[in-house]
């Protein structure tokens, strides 16, 4: 695996996408991305070799520079191979030619079909996910996740007083003493759920009547108490923001403390949580 050294980030140009160049993005099933840009006017040969596609993390502290090279159709192409390490976060995409300022890119045609129902091999102990998307300002950014190991959430089933979670681990095995953990985000409460396992597939049931009010984060302990705590997340498709697309019915509860509702949802980082509210 190659790691690109973080560099100092220059000041970007504005967020106005009106005249921004558009980048077409193609994803491959190994987690790689290619970006195709129109050749900037009047910079033909000068651009070759000196132009870069710049991915700049939102926190402004890290930057990845990918050389833009002429492609067969007269456009410029940059590649981000699956094996290149891109730390988790939101990365804004810019094009920079020669010594000019970086220019914010707008999304063109994103062909992400190979990300749909993706089943990566977790052989190298981790899963890398990059999903290009349009920001609310109409600019091109890339969401990146890097999980080692990874617990992918699959089907959820809403039951009477209970939530049933199915999933799949990548980059780790499931030990006989594997279990799921629920942690109250604002507090110290920790609950356990017993895990059923079938090779790399896991399943567990959350008794929602045991949950007090608040947001509960869901974790997997694939190797039991002695091993890592893995945040359960849904990452392996083409949908950058799961929250508005994967929505679930409320579970209505009668608890000793009175009526309540529990709703599973995906956070802004596509991690799985359950929100419990009382009227």
């Amino acid at each position, binding site marked *: 695996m190659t790691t690109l050294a973080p560099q100092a980030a220059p000041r970007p140009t504005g967020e106005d996408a009106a005249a921004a160049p558009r980048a*077409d993005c193609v994803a491959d099933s190994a987690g790689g991305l290619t970006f195709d840009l129109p050749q900037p006017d009047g910079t033909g040969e000068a651009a070759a070799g000196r132009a870069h596609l710049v991915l700049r993390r939102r926190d402004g502290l890290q930057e990845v520079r990918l050389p833009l090279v002429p492609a067969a159709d007269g456009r410029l192409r940059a590649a981000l191979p699956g094996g290149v390490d891109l730390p988790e976060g939101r990365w804004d995409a810019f094009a920079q030619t020669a010594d000019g300022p970086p220019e914010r890119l707008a999304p063109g*045609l994103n*062909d992400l*079909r190979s990300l*749909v129902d993706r089943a990566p091999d977790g052989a190298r102990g981790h899963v890398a996910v990059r999903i290009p998307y349009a920001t609310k300002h109409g600019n091109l950014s890339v969401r990146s996740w890097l999980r080692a190991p990874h617990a992918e959430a699959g089907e959820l*089933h809403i039951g009477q007083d209970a939530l049933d979670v199915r999933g799949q681990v990548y980059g780790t095995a499931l030990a006989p003493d594997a279990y799921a953990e629920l942690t109250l985000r604002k507090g110290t409460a920790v609950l356990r759920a017993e895990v059923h396992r079938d090779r790399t597939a896991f399943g567990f049931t959350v008794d929602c009547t045991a949950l007090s009010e608040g947001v509960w984060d869901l974790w997997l302990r694939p190797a039991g108490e002695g091993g890592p705590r893995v945040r359960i997340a849904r990452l392996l498709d083409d949908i950058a923001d799961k929250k508005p697309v*994967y*929505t679930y*019915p409320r579970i209505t509860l009668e608890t000793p403390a009175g009526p309540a509702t529990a709703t599973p949802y995906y956070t802004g980082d596509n991690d799985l949580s359950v929100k419990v509210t009382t009227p």
Partner: protein
Amino acid sequence: MQISFLIHNAYGIGGTIRTTYNLANTLAEQHDVEIVSVLRHRDEPVFARNPRVRLRHLVDLRRNGPGYEGDDPEHLKPARVFPKGELRHDQYSALTDRRIAEHLSTVDADVVVGTRPGLNVHLARDTRRGPARVGQEHLTLDSHSVALRTQLRAAYPRLDAVTTTTEADAAAYRRKMRLPGVRVEAVPNSVPAPAVEPADGSAKWVVAAGRLAPVKRYDLLIRAFDLVRAQRPDWRLRIYGSGKQKDRLRQVIDELGLYNHVLLMGPAHPIEPEWAKGSIAAVTSSMESFGMTIVEAMRCGLPVVSTDCPHGPGEIIDNGVDGRLVPVGDVRAIAGGLLELINDDALRRKMADAALKDAERFDPARIAERYESVFSGLVARGGASGIGRVRGSLHRTRGALLGGAYAVRDAGLTVFGKERSA
């Protein structure tokens, strides 16, 4: 030829806007083409424009721009020429009436093309002598109110041609309107070849795309998918689009426990890469004036299972060859159509190949040729020659009288309630 399109708003998103760009962009390879947008609310159009197509507006509604005319007192007065029965009447005004009339009375073109009924009325009234007047119908005659149809009957005889998107609607125009000397032609909407590779038929996804509106009957599609899941839980459904039905559809999904199988994806632009993620497309509408999404999906290599609703689907899909037509409103039939293609990989792939090939007839180049032949026929008949001008004005006068007579009869019918609005 010089061809001038008149459109409601060339800066928005919608089927008519997209299809107008497709046509204008292609015609501009051979002809001098302009698009005149009555309204303009943003700086740049959403759809790609061939740089050879000139684009301008008549009324500036860019809120923070220096030329904003939304507060002009004339724009606050209701329109009198743009017909009241038109859906967009509220967006038109005394100012649009005047600007459109000024434009059409001086337009430098051989052919002027109106893109909605209200603008076609302007074309019929305001166009200077000379250019051929072509009114496009992107909806259908039957979908208009009785009041609007009455107004169209009075105005349309002064057009040279009316184009519809389906043969069924062209037949309705010929049958229900008296349009002597007016050429009525069905010319389907065009859809360009997508910039993405066609789907390969291996993804276990059904895809639908459109406004989440009652007429699309996505509630039926979701219920049908409940039957699909019972047999094939490995297949899932994505519905792209936004609209007022969203909460209602969400409720149906939750009631049926389909939240792992049916996803409401929200709007997507461009849509082609989203079609390419599926292997079957579904349309369950009760009415489609054309059926643009059917052609789009076919061009991306998806066979379409569609209700055989009026007017478009039956004219696009060759049933059993490049897709499947099922009865309107029938959940079991929709599920049956989907399962037929889900359960038979070879049939699905064969239909996908046929869909790709059959949808080529909607290519902008082919559609532009059909328009070109309509336009050049009109220009040869009337347009530029002096004789044509006289003949043209005579037929317009006669048409206007006939249209007037029809208007009287309509008024009577409305009173007695014999004619129902669609």
